[in-house]
């Protein structure tokens, strides 16, 4: 999906939910979220939902409520997209803890019956660093992270948060490798 197609899919999903008398608020992260913010341009496969918003609280999006997953699949069929083009992918992030102040940095977009909350750039740096350390510097996550052009302070904050999710020494070594690849030569001492 490019940005135009993703925007179209979200608009049609919002109108469809509205027509079906449904209302959902979802919180999205990942590459498609970055694309919607105009921070990267690469085509993506799906839009990852980390949480639903219910009564102002973030709750697990796993599994999607059936009327929502049905509507997503219906829109996918119309636009020839995967039936799970919007999916509750990385909801374990919610269980292990989102970065401090995450909710305050969300940006909302309204599409009919769908409210899409997009994670801000600072939080996306956290998620992308965590994913890049997990999947090496050749991954799309590393490329996205580089495209975000993070400062050293942002990377260090992201590194600290990432280690709360995986405190193992092996993960730390991978993290350091990614930080060095991003130009932080003294990462081993600071992360």
């Amino acid at each position, binding site marked *: 999906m490019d940005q135009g197609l993703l925007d*179209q899919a979200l*608009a*049609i999903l919002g*109108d*469809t939910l509205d*027509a079906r008398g449904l209302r959902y608020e979802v919180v999205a992260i990942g590459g498609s979220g970055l694309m919607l913010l105009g921070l990267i341009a690469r085509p993506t496969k799906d839009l990852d939902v980390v949480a639903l918003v219910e009564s102002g609280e973030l709750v697990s999006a796993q599994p999607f409520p059936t009327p929502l997953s*049905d*509507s997503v699949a*219906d*829109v996918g*069929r*119309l*636009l*020839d997209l995967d039936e799970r083009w919007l999916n509750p992918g990385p909801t374990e992030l919610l269980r292990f803890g989102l970065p401090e102040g995450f909710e305050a940095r969300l940006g909302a977009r309204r599409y009919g019956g769908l409210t899409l909350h997009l994670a801000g750039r600072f939080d996306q740096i956290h998620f992308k660093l965590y994913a890049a350390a997990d999947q090496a510097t050749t991954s799309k996550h590393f490329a996205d992270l580089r495209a975000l052009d993070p400062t050293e302070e942002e990377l260090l904050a992201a590194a600290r948060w990432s280690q709360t999710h995986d405190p193992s020494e092996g993960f730390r070594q991978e993290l350091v490798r990614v930080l060095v690849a991003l130009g932080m030569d003294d990462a081993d001492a600071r992360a």
Partner: protein
Amino acid sequence: MPALSDRLQEGALELAWSLWAELGVSGWRRRHVSHAIDPEPLILFTAFLGDTDPRLRDEATDWCIGYGRYVSAVRLRNLLSKALPEERRAFGPFAATINAHSTLRWPGSTDPRQYQRTGRARIPDFARPSLVVLRCRALFGVGARAEILRTYLSDSSSSLSAADLAHVVGYTKRNVADALEALKMGGLLEVIPQRNQLRYRSARTSELADLVGDLPGDFPNWRSIFRILETMLSTARRTEGLNPSVRGVEAARALHELTDDMRLAGLKAPPFADAGEAWARFESWAVVTTEAWASAAV
């Protein structure tokens, strides 16, 4: 131009009238003289159309009261269990009205409507080719046995398992297995073990055909055809006034839900090359399909 729902409804009524005319209901041109009529799906479909044509509803009710002994309550129940919710709801008063004016005990009945019998629906016998299903029932009894035999009459080369047949005839697998065993014992069918399954085929096709008499040229899968029509009509009604994109989504959903029925009815879905044109394509496909069925062109 009239709304899509009006155009589809008109075609659906035309089709229903033509099929009821085959069954002996007066006042309409018979177009389906060479199509085997399947009563239970037609009754459910007529109930679904309900008040859109009170005369059709009342004439069909009249026929059901007069000839309901040739209609299977068991098959109605089985078909109802897989029916759309709107169809089930609509069948309640239809069945209740028939039960109230006869000794029949049709399933799914709710409250009867006001109804005065006309007694106009009359047919001297089931000799018409299109009435082969009723003729089989008159000869072999109302039950799975008659439905199995008409299935083999429609395609004498069929080799089917009890599960295949249960799906086709609308009876439970157990009913069908019992009937198959009896027909095998009677010499009309033969059994071929295939891997871990028993498959049945006609053993005396020509004798059976001679006994049953004139056959129609086509044995349409009316259950699937009516389900497609009902879904198209429901989709058109439900989405009236919505924007074309949302109507396109609903069309895509309807077609997805109808995948099996379209295969069984030998129908191809319209291609959706462009999402913006999806609704327009669905609309013209639905109209052409309905008109073709109503005019007996397919």
